């Protein structure tokens, strides 16, 4: 810490620090492990100096930090995916996994009830996420949460499109499946953050998203 001047300042600084520590969770895990502590320390130093300058200065610090947050978070996630071809392949696989059984059933068993298609979507998403994730309960929890989100998405899609989907709509299915897979991955990220937030020791080293 860099010498705040009063007890109130210490409390304000502690709150600001907690909030910024929460925002740091948006960065990829390996980046956070390498630089998270230092980033928090730098933020605390900025905030402490701002508190000494006056009440408006802390808002300016938050303005600076929040304005760079989106671009830098995206940049770090992009670097992470682009810098590891194996991981990129797993992301693509997780996104496209729901497509395979869904397309197969839509094509070759068009008369089957919707429940089968939905089950196929669920199984595909689960398989994709489990295969792309690590081992252990947190990773499986992420996979199932992601699959559930994908399933909810599938329900919405099916409610609008009414299967069986014609063979000519493969590109549409591809697009929707990818969207479902991306949604599943996004939910799995949120679940991971929640699990880490309650002190879980579980990590998914192979696929830290």
């Amino acid at each position, binding site marked *: 810490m860099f010498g705040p001047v009063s007890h109130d300042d210490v409390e304000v600084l502690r709150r600001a620090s907690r909030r910024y520590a929460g925002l740091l969770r948006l960065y990829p895990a390996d980046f956070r492990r*390498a630089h998270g502590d*230092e980033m928090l320390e730098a933020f605390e*130093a900025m905030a402490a100096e701002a508190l000494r300058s006056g009440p408006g200065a802390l808002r300016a610090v938050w303005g600076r930090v929040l304005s*760079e947050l989106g671009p830098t978070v995206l940049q*770090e996630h992009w670097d992470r995916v682009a810098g590891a071809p194996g991981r990129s392949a797993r992301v693509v696989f997780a996104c496209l996994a729901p497509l395979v059984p869904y397309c197969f059933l839509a094509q070759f068993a068009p008369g089957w009830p919707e429940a089968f298609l939905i089950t196929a979507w669920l199984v595909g998403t689960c398989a994709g996420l489990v295969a792309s994730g690590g081992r252990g309960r947190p990773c499986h929890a992420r996979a199932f949460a992601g699959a559930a989100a994908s399933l909810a998405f599938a329900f919405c899609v099916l409610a609008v499109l009414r299967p069986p989907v014609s063979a000519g709509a493969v590109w549409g299915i591809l697009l929707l499946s990818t969207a479902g897979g991306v949604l599943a991955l996004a939910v799995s990220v949120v679940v991971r953050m929640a699990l880490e937030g309650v002190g879980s020791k579980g990590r998914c080293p192979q696929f830290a998203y």
Partner: protein
Amino acid sequence: MVPNPTEFQILLALAAGELHGYGIMQEVERASGGTARLGPGTLYGAIKRMLRAGWVEQTPVGPAGGADEDAAAVDPRRRCNYRLTRAGRKAAADAARRLADLVSAAAQRGLISM
């Protein structure tokens, strides 16, 4: 590989000696007359790339003395300072030379006076 403007400013900040993260932010702001202000995300994103490029290296916090030593003792999270490597100094010098050439060209065309 050529440093981008943020990386160049960090290289300049470190040219005078090793600094920790917040020290780099302050030095960049001071050197630019307050026009360039780095946040932690921008700074450490750039540092990550510069470590990878071999332009900077981490050094454990040593007995720097004064307030810095006190801060390191109070806050156990502080782990390292950063300093230029030989490759980083060369990259900074090359970038500075290119900028100097451009400034010289601008002066010859009457855009600025030197």
